[in-house]
């Protein structure tokens, strides 16, 4: 396969040059001492570790240049341990490099492939084995075994069935029902429109029935952001505008891309930004995606006020919140 140009002649291994420690006993002795000093430094590191572990108070802070105020206990055990390990290594490598033989030696390789006779014998043995088992002559055994072995894998998969429940309709449902009050998070206090100033943002959750505790699974679907603008700033169609209340608009806080909390609100541009993948949503246009990988706007929650003037959901979310999934209707 290659244009076989005659290569230059191989001059062979270069002549070995002795190190100083190979020929000079004084240099060898010096190298020996150096190795011993390195090993001793390791022992010192262990002592430092022991001292720091037992005798330096865990709340003791000291000033270290560059690092600033540092926990002395942590630093002492860490540096001590590092020294005790490092100097064993340095000593061993120095020993190998100065005092152990450094003359390169040659070993020979064998080709990976077996001898031809071995390969033939192997084929013979394998064939003879298969022959005595009668696999070729008894197809019924072969096929029934293949079927049985294949089926025997099934229980292993079936056994995993109870890892979790089936999704059912749960991804399409949240705790937001018609008339559910918006409550502050944290605090769980119902809020009125007047509690939020123009330009303000608040995270809210659906009020839960008395005695029910909010779980993380609830939060992962229910978290909603309230943002209050001047009503004139909205560029919404009539229906979406009717979902707002006195300039307050509500969106699911769970990103429509991969479910992170869309937590960054830029007041001057009225943009919501997801810190995970920088999907950017325009609040004035019903959280339309204006940048980044998200493909859908954040679902908008229709809100209004109840008879006592508290903000409530006008209706449940009209679409599933959070990241997309195969069965999602959009």
């Amino acid at each position, binding site marked *: 396969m290659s244009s076989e140009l005659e*290569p230059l002649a191989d001059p062979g291994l270069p002549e070995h040059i002795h190190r100083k420690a190979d020929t000079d006993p004084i240099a060898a002795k010096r190298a020996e001492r150096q190795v011993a000093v390195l090993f001793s430094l390791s022992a010192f590191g262990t002592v430092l570790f022991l001292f720091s572990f037992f005798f330096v108070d865990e709340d003791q802070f000291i000033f270290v240049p560059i690092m600033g105020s540092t926990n002395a206990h942590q630093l002492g055990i*860490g540096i001590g341990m590092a020294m005790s390990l490092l100097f064993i290594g340095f000593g061993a490598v120095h020993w190998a490099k100065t005092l152990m033989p450094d003359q390169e030696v040659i070993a020979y390789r064998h080709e990976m492939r077996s001898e031809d006779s071995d390969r033939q014998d192997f084929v013979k043995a394998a064939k003879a084995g298969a022959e005595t088992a009668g696999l070729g002559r008894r197809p019924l055994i072969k096929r029934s075994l293949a079927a049985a072995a294949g089926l025997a894998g099934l229980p292993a998969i079936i056994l995993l069935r109870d890892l979790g*429940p089936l999704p059912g309709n749960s991804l399409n449902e949240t705790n937001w029902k018609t008339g559910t009050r918006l409550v502050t998070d944290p605090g769980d206090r119902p809020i009125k429109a007047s509690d939020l100033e123009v330009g303000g943002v608040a995270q809210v959750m659906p009020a839960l029935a008395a005695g029910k505790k909010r779980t993380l699974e609830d939060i992962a679907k229910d978290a909603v952001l309230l943002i209050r603008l001047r009503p004139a700033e909205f560029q919404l169609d009539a229906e979406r505008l009717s979902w707002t209340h006195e300039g307050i608009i509500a969106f699911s806080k769970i990103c429509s891309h991969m479910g992170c909390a869309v937590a960054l609100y830029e007041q001057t541009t009225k943009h919501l930004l997801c810190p995970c993948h920088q999907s950017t949503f325009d609040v004035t246009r019903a959280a339309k995606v204006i940048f980044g990988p998200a493909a859908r706007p954040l679902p908008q929650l229709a809100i209004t006020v109840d008879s006592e003037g508290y903000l409530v959901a006008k209706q449940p979310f009209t679409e599933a919140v959070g990241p997309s*999934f195969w069965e999602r209707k959009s």
Partner: protein
Amino acid sequence: MSAREKVAANVANYVDERTGAASWMKKNLQKVFPDHWSFMLGEIALYSFLILLLSGTFLTFWFDPSMRHVVYEGSYQPLKDVEMSAAYASTLHISFDVRGGLLMRQIHHWAALIFMAAIVVHLLRVFFTGAFRKPREFNWILGIALLTLGIVEGFLGYSLPDDLLSGTGIRIAHAIIQSIPVVGTYLSFFAFGGAFPGEVFIPRIYIVHVLLLPGIFLALITVHLMLVWYQKHTQYPGPGRTEKNVVGYPLMPVYMAKAGGFFFIVFGITALLGAVASINPIWLYGPYTPGQISAGSQPDWYMGWLDGLVRMAPPIETYLFGYTVSWNILIPGLIIPGIIFTGMALYPFIESWMTGDKKEHHLLDRPRNVPNRTALGVMSLTFMLVALINGGNDIIATHFDLTINQIMWFSRIGIIVLPPLAFVITKRICLSLQRADRELVLHGKETGRLVMLPHGEFIEVHEELSAEKKYTLTQHQQPAAIALVKEDARGVLNPKGIRAKLQARFSAANAENIAKPTPDELKQLEGGHH
């Protein structure tokens, strides 16, 4: 015989009579390993793995992999009385109330980063020097498997503490699983035991992280090393080094001391990092809740490219026949990584097919002498680098005063334009380096000494290279292109058709080299002045 020798002899005799180990040991204590700094990279990965086993075992003594709710009552005041998972609380306990706990946590995390970095650099060394060629293709595949599992293991590891940052990572993993067509929703409900986040995910990934994957790692690493042992290590070309020998130092005592010492050095440096460099300070993030997030959310570096791909994906989602497909997640999150890792695993076979080279190789290539492969490697690296840069776009934006949009658009265009550009540039650089080598061999080194000849001509004195150096620069073989056989002598069309054409194309590109000097050319120059 001294008393000590007698004891040693008795022990050796006892063991050998029961195992016959002496005949194996006598051969292998003298086993020769070639010496080169780049052969240490895989060692770093191996030692980091051992450090991970040791420090990880320490952490399991206190870590409670449970998502059960507890109220924190440890010594870290800012989180006192805060409700959190037992996993997070026990991580705080290890960090603040177990002496040496924080150190071990930091050693464990640093070792994981070093482990992944060492694997990647080792992989690059093996790739660019052609060490993956026959007979080492299996070991290359094992290496790719270790890399892939390493990424998964690392992700699971930093997900365990259940802090706000890692919980966000799990949230993203959940969305990737959920995006899989047809079965995604079911898979996510099985993996999480119901709706996200549930209470079973961390206990489940814990057992995968501390038992299942480490077990697989141990098995794969053992086979990886046994193959290195059995096939003998590759070596760099040079005088006296051939395809038939291996030149280096014996295992006993030189490599035992060097490799053993090196383990302590790697451990020591990891411990030093753990002592002085804070990593993953989970107490600053707070416990995970799906409604919160911190700005600048970043995965560990080996996941950064994946996050970068996801960030730059165009917002495409289709809704057809009542079903939703999130291409914006599927393509960057599963399809492209799948192509990358499959391509990497198959590369030895692809190259062998492209070049028609079916021979055994034990001498390594200098990257410049294989311009096509080197260019391909740099091209792939460029792709990953652009992805990685985009994975840190928020951090880069704040540090360099750029907008996210600028970086995102740079990445979106760059990831398509820059890799081919890198290929062309790298190939040209390789060919230029080959030209420089040729010059060196033919005309020697420029010395900078100017000499005026008697008749007034100025020349620069060139110093001839040593025979060893000349040999090193010219020992490689330059492949010839595979001739395309359109039809055989009897006019029958080549049954391989398009495949033969492609192979001829690739092998022609591969054969593009600067002809190395021949002995004849050298002889002609000898005697004459330069």
